[in-house]
């Protein structure tokens, strides 16, 4: 490599990254500082966490969840990790190693739950048994077990690594369908309510590219390989569409999502309140649900009775989503 042209906006040292949405370049130190500032801003603006909270971070072994765990520890929060073994072949085996190594190297506590060992099924089998696309079966399992493990462990807040690209893509999908109920629920903080822990997303002001860069600069080894189930799903198509708009008009993604939170979300608050009132306890696990048995218990019942389905048979099914 020869001389680098661009310089850090803050200190004029050689830059390591260009951030078109800030119309600036940064050196490693000032890039990290920018990320920290964005996380602190999100935490404060949305009243996400306090230093007394017992925080549980849902960790997948990928860049976002390891980055958010790293940042929270660095900022002085008490945060343990939760790794959920989804049983997606080699992908899950490898991702577990990254999560464990990260925790072990830093002396952090990682709780592990395995769908196969603890609940008798895995994501490919659940997908086949319930005729759902893999990401849907996976999402039901993750949401339920993140909630129940957080409550079981006495944690006051559950943190997920959803970033700006994730949230903008979900918003894009909900908007294309004008799905008002989902739009109303799309907040970076969901307060604790009967049977659900408080849930927060401290990375909503940071992009995926920035989170990957955080990991590289901080020397965090994460799983770069993609979940094989993601291939062809709509979420990826929405992200690609938004990134094309971002390329032509840097800052669009952040404006789309963050201005939704400021200008549109307040108009939708009445809608969520109505939906939560009608919840009752799941007859099997006690979690809040609209029917007799919650979506997770129904899925687990069907999937655990089904013979195991190898990953290869379900790959690419996301296309139909």
């Amino acid at each position, binding site marked *: 490599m020869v001389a*680098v042209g661009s310089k850090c906006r803050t200190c004029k040292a050689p830059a390591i990254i260009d951030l*078109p949405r800030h119309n600036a370049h940064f050196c490693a130190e000032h890039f990290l500082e920018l990320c920290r500032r964005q996380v602190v801003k999100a935490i404060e603006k949305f009243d996400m966490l306090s230093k007394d909270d017992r925080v549980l971070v849902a960790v997948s072994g990928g860049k976002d969840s390891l980055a958010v765990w790293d940042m929270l520890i660095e900022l002085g929060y008490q945060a343990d990790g939760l790794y959920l073994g989804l049983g997606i072949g080699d992908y899950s085996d490898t991702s577990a190693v990254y999560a464990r190594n990260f925790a072990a190297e830093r002396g952090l506590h990682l709780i592990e739950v395995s769908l196969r060992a603890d609940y008798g099924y895995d994501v490919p089998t659940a997908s086949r048994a319930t005729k759902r696309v893999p990401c849907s079966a996976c999402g039901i399992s993750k949401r339920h077990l993140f909630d129940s493990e957080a409550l079981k462990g006495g944690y006051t807040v559950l943190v997920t690594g959803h970033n700006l*690209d994730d949230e903008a893509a979900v918003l894009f999908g909900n908007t294309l369908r004008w799905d008002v109920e989902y739009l109303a629920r799309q907040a970076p903080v969901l307060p604790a309510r009967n049977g659900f822990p408080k849930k927060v997303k401290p990375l909503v002001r940071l992009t*995926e*590219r920035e989170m990957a860069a955080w990991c590289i600069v901080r020397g965090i080894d994460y799983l770069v390989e993609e979940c094989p189930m993601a291939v062809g799903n709509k979420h990826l198509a929405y992200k*690609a569409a938004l990134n094309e708009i971002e*390329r032509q008009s840097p800052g669009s993604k952040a404006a789309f999502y963050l201005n939704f939170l400021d200008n549109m979300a307040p108009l939708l608050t009445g809608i969520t309140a109505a939906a939560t009132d009608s919840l009752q306890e799941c007859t099997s696990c006690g979690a809040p649900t609209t029917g007799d048995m919650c979506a997770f218990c129904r899925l687990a019942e069907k999937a655990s009775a089904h013979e195991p389905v190898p990953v290869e048979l379900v790959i690419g099914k996301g296309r139909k989503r």
Partner: protein
Amino acid sequence: MKVLLRNPKRELVIDGKRSVNALLTQLDLPRESHLVICNGTLVPGDADLTDDDVVEIRPVISGGA
């Protein structure tokens, strides 16, 4: 230069000096969804890459909800 690509993992050899942005454009890879690591260090779009460099182009977009 040696260029390592991921998902799926593969390697290319590309001759001649060029900028990071030019390399991404040549390979038809969007800048917003990739980072470039040259000899172990993250480099910005206008950094120049030369024949002796070992370059990794890392995709940063994850699927799933």
